[in-house]
């Protein structure tokens, strides 16, 4: 039901949001700040107030941020905004025929709009010995607290997986003086996510700071004593002593509830370019959703980042409030901090791309430009926020440089972005 008041359209529809993480929280907040007057139920499995995850592998783990620094808002926010936050009471069933959900407590909620923001869970390390003490994942506050507790004394840590979580964790542990070995099955770190040039740079930084990197190796078993891990056995039989093992081998989208409700799932809950499932009352956002990205020539992607969760939440809020923006097309961007290295990325690489490096990696300030079919689609920047911010503008404008023009002497992303802005203003 819609009521138009002045220029603002207000909706009394009931919105139920499954998942109270970054995306779910943002959706609730943006609905209210956009003028939504109907009920908003934000339903989460965790007991904590909605919080941000990035510091769990960085500042929070290192002890330079306290728990309240993680919270996205204080406890009074939800009551003040009439957002009904349900904590530690996850949705266990969705009945699309009755337009309702049932929570673990048995309570049910009716919806006009249902949004899945169920996120993802860490992939389990599928080896013997994975259930011993000292073996952890790193996804939620409980994990981070457990790990921080273990790091109170010098440890021999083995990190399984050389992705962003693994490398960020390695940096924190090395800075804390612990012995760190990262075991990565592929031939380079961050193979899924970044260019070989960036992998190589980060591997050099890590090696210089004492992280032992074992590339092209995998874990076959975890051995222990009295239920506590003591050694990691690799392919080939070699054993690495370890009293803390962290599995950072990726996350699996929480799609089961959606699948049981008869929605199509693949690598994520399948939605269209407006983040809608084929049921026009049901959407999905964030880590759990896969969608066609205009930054990847409509390839179906699932993006794991704060920006994706937040921007998709804002898009769906606007859509529910009546916006007819034809598609979600926010420029994907991402950051990582490892030691004193600041990595920022904008856009998405093609599966088969051509690359060039601007600047000198030896200085610690450079960018890798990645081109698909001759046009810029992705920029990875190290120590160079100017390149990153310019890249975000360029990739959002649709006016992108070719490999040829970027190769000209004197080319800078900043100048190209400015030129594009001036052309629009003209």
């Amino acid at each position: 039901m819609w009521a138009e008041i002045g220029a603002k359209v207000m909706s009394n529809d009931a919105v139920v949001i499954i998942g109270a993480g970054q995306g779910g929280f943002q959706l609730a907040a943006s609905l209210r700040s956009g003028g939504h007057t109907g009920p908003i139920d934000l339903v989460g499995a965790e007991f904590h107030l909605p919080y941000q995850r990035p510091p769990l592998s960085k500042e929070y783990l290192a002890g330079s941020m306290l728990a309240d620094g993680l919270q996205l808002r204080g406890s009074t926010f939800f009551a003040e905004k009439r957002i009904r936050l349900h904590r530690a009471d996850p949705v266990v069933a969705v009945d699309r025929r009755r337009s309702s959900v049932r929570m673990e407590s048995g309570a049910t909620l009716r919806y006009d709009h249902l949004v899945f923001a169920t996120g993802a869970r860490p992939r389990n390390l599928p080896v013997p010995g994975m259930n011993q003490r000292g073996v952890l994942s790193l996804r939620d506050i409980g994990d981070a607290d457990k790990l921080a507790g273990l790091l109170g004394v010098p440890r021999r840590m083995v990190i399984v997986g050389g992705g962003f979580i693994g490398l960020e964790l390695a940096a924190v542990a090395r800075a804390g003086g612990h012995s760190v070995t990262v075991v990565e099955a592929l031939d380079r770190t961050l193979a899924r996510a970044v260019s070989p040039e960036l992998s190589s740079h980060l591997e050099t930084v890590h090696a210089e700071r004492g992280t032992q990197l074992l590339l092209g190796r995998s874990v076959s078993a975890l051995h222990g004593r009295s239920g506590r891990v003591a050694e990691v056995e690799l392919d080939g039989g070699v054993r690495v002593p370890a009293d803390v093992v962290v599995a950072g081998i990726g996350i699996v989208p929480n799609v089961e509830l959606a699948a049981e409700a008869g929605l199509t799932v693949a690598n994520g809950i399948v939605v269209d370019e407006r983040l809608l499932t084929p049921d026009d009352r049901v959407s999905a956002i964030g880590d759990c959703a896969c969608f066609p990205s205009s930054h990847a020539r409509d390839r179906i992607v699932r993006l794991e980042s704060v920006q994706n969760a937040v921007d998709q939440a804002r898009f769906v809020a606007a859509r529910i409030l009546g916006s007819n923006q034809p598609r979600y097309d926010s420029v994907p961007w991402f950051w990582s901090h490892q030691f004193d290295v600041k990595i920022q990325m904008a856009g998405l690489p093609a599966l088969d791309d051509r690359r060039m490096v601007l600047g000198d990696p030896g200085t610690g300030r450079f960018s890798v430009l990645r081109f698909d079919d001759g046009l810029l689609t992705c920029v990875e920047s190290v120590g160079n926020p100017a390149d990153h911010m310019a890249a975000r503008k360029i990739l959002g404008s649709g006016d992108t440089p070719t490999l040829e023009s970027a190769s000209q002497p004197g080319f800078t992303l900043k100048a190209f972005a400015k030129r594009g802005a001036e052309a629009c203003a003209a």
Partner: protein
Amino acid sequence: MSPTVVVTTQDGEVRRLDARHGASLMEVLRDDEINDEIGMCGGMCACGTCHVYVDDAGSDVLPAMAEEEEAMLDSLDARTDRSRLGCQLRLGGDLQELTVEMAPPEY
């Protein structure tokens, strides 16, 4: 007495806000819903959305600008010599009053 922030929004509205001692300017503005974008990176000096112009930018009660903040500000087209990032300005202690304007959005 809690610290006070006086902010002029991008629409020209002036708001007077009470801040929690120890909160960053970004958190104060974000909690007051100054706009929908601010604080995307959670205060990690990585997104530029908390860009403000400070009335007394040279004042020595403001925390000194670290290299990270300088690099981020340098990347913003709307930067002036009064620019600071709100996530780097913590209220309380010597900083009891802060008057700022929201910088225009970058995009």
